[in-house]
């Protein structure tokens, strides 16, 4: 298909995406977007430096390959370079949705799907504003390399998000209801779930009081536990932070005890959902990578460059937001493994603490943060009054040791991750209910 330059490694990632977005703002249709785009990321590596180009005219890919090759220095030993030797050479078509008619749901039906939320919102007398947004997308990627890789795969996503503001007290309270799946059907007919969410939010807005700042035992919902795993440990497992860094290599030696013995965290791009990545953007197949197994460091996430630098195996985590960007090390679906207790048993173990049910955003470095959107006090093992919390924080390496309970019940949520200038990248996050002995709550 392409003539790859000699003495260099090169790859081409062709992407076509179609999808759309519908928004009803305060009951009025303000967006009905039908998006279609195609483009390619072309990369050339000479053993020292990558030369990349993003192009929207896919007819010009060969021209770009030749142009980038002219910038690079041909290297007769390129095939012996550790990075190049690390790369997988996969071939074939892996189209999960090939048999499905991805256009079966019409634009009118998608409008109706979003509009079905409007009467539910109108039932709430304290509703001040709302925005209902339905979005979907279907992407086909084809990855080709000078090593002979030629793999085609697809991903599909759909979401329904309702942002709304209630005025139950002196100040307006913002809330969000969101569901993410792969097909429109997974986010359709959610009116009852939305109604229940509105009821809970009204109660929260009426009764929530500022939390007394301090250190508390906390229980995290599966969604928040997923964010916790993503922010607290997932980002630290991205091996690009370790390249050439002897201190980090020593500190992050495999087998080191990094958390409580009940703790398992893994990343798995083969799990259906928002983070589904059957092949990464270097053509590497997805697999389950344990980051922590029984409290001990068990693995980390790699691109070919980081795997070669650390002498470890590929994990399928070189991802780019779209064809405009080269891949960097990113998570896919990051989960905490289940425990053996029930949700009720976890709560029963907390005399006074905080339950974090949902969140606005999180971040993670040495200190991780979660900005809760809904939280309740736990008193005597039971949910008590709702509380307003700005931020929950903890030191990553201390907090993982403070996990003392995991539920059997698990759930997988979804979100968007930001790193460098690539944001938001679709990821999944999930796990059980997680009890932590102590977090700082403000």
């Amino acid at each position, binding site marked *: 298909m392409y003539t790859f330059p000699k003495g260099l490694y090169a790859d081409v990632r062709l992407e076509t995406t179609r999808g759309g*977005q519908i928004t009803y703002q*305060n009951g*009025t*249709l*303000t*967006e*009905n*977007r*039908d*998006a*279609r*785009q195609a*483009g390619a990321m072309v990369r050339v590596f000479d053993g*020292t*430096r*990558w*030369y*990349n*180009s*993003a192009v*929207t*005219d896919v007819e010009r890919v060969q021209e770009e390959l030749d142009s980038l090759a002219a*910038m690079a220095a041909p290297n007769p030993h390129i095939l012996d370079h550790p990075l190049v030797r690390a790369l997988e050479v996969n071939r074939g078509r892996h189209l999960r949705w090939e048999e499905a008619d991805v256009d079966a749901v019409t634009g009118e039906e998608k409008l109706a799907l979003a509009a079905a939320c409007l009467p539910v919102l109108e039932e709430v007398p304290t509703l*001040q*504003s709302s925005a209902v947004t339905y979005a979907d997308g279907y992407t086909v990627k084809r990855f080709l390399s000078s090593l002979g890789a030629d793999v085609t795969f697809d991903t599909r996503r759909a979401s329904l998000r309702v942002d709304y*503001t209630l*005025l139950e007290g002196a*100040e*307006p*309270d913002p809330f969000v209801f969101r569901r993410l799946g792969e097909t429109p059907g997974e986010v359709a007919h959610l009116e009852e779930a939305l109604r229940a969410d509105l009821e809970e939010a009204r109660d929260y807005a009426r009764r929530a009081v500022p939390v007394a*700042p301090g250190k508390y035992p906390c229980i995290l919902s599966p969604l928040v536990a997923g964010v916790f795993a993503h922010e607290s440990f997932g*980002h630290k497992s991205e091996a690009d*932070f370790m*390249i*050439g*860094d002897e*201190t*980090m290599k020593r*500190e992050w030696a495999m087998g080191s005890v990094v958390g409580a013995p009940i703790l398992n965290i893994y990343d798995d791009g083969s799990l259906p959902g928002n983070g589904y990545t059957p092949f990464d953007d270097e053509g590497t197949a997805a697999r389950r990578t344990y980051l922590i197994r029984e409290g001990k460091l068990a693995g980390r996430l790699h691109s070919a460059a980081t795997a070669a630098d650390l002498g470890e195996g590929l994990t399928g985590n070189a991802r780019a937001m779209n064809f405009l*960007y*080269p891949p960097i090390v990113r998570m896919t679906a990051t989960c905490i493994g289940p425990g053996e207790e029930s949700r009720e048993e976890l709560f029963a173990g907390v005399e006074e603490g905080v339950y974090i049910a949902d969140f*606005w*955003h999180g971040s*993670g*470095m*040495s*200190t*991780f*943060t*979660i*900005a809760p959107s809904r939280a309740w006090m736990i008193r005597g093992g039971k949910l008590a009054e709702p509380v*307003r*919390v*700005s*931020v929950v*924080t903890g030191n990553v390496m201390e907090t993982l040791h403070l996990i003392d309970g995991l539920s059997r019940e698990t759930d997988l949520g979804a979100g968007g991750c930001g790193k*460098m*200038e690539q944001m938001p990248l679709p990821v999944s996050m999930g796990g059980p209910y997680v009890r932590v002995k102590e977090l*700082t709550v*403000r």
Partner: protein
Amino acid sequence: MTDHIRELYQIREEELSLSVTQGEITEVTRKKIVRSGCRVYAGGRLGVAGALGEPGEDTWLRAEEAAARPGLPWPRGPGEYRPRRRDLSAPAWADGDFLQEMTGVLDTLKREYPQFIFSNKIRKVHSETRLEREGAGLRSADSAVELAIIVKHRQSLSPFDTALEWQGRTWDRGAFLDQSRSQLEAFLRPARLPEGPWVTVAAEPGLLLGKVAESLDGEDLGRGATLFSGKLGEGLFSPAFTLLADRRGEEDPCVPFFDAEGTALPEDCLPLIRAGVLERPLTDRRTAARFGWEATAAAGAMYDGAPRLMGCPVTAVPGAASLAELTGDGPAVWVVLAAGGDYTAAGDYATPVQTAYLLEGGRLVGRLPEFALAGNLYHIFGEGYRGITADRPLFGQRALVTRLKLS
């Protein structure tokens, strides 16, 4: 006005991006991207179709079809605008020269500070935004140089410790290196937190301004859904605090002088809060018409989407005092990185501070341990507000100075 209008919304971006690993440029990525949105206003509806690259007649036909079917009602038609061009771009910088210059900067940092690891991104970008009917309309062009260098001490267990940043239309190697040296020297000198609980804090203005800008959303404000609802005309903040909707491009390069509907501001800026008094919210044309306010050029759009209220860059107006004068003789805190914090609905703010330095007399004295800050919106921009620096001590950017509580 005719009942059938074709309008082109187009964004052209040319970028050279350098990835930095271990102080070396390991990746060079170039992009030349044209995003075209074809808009057709017909029969009280708007149809939009997008294309990457120049649009062909097929894209216009898709937009015509979208406008013809029941879909997006657009009774107000397109915005009115007089043709205008503004080009703030710095002279073009050849890719090879840029690569050589940045290699030199990194070499200097590595040579002078071998105890640190430098990584992340450097880029130069040129952008042009157009909104045109029949080939005439609005064009806004600009360029920027951006460095976002993550710094990690070789002995540190944190993924990164501090950051060296530059964002500007022009590049000043000397100023960047001077400020980098000042910060890295301070990093090597551990310092103690000032006595609390209240401390004077200097930070990049966006760290604290987000809630103010969010609360100025005209649609939400008009519907009683923000902190500022029902407070137009009231004095809410310090007389020293004036906030502009700002499309001048002085603080943020690559901001077009018009919004996605073609609305521009008089002299490209307009006060939203003047001397602490809430004067007007952010609006697009629809919101302005609904509530009887003026349009403040706050419509945004995906290139292939419909324009709607998304916000506008805001700038807090600087005063006459420098950082040294605003922070006074006593110790103060310069926040470099405070990730993950937020305001509650009531305006209470709390954040961990991952990287900060002790300031004395406007100079960096030493690196502070991690701590947390808290405050309330009305205090941060009210009694506690000291102002925006007249000088640009943050890698070419001004700093906001206020009082916050250590926690």
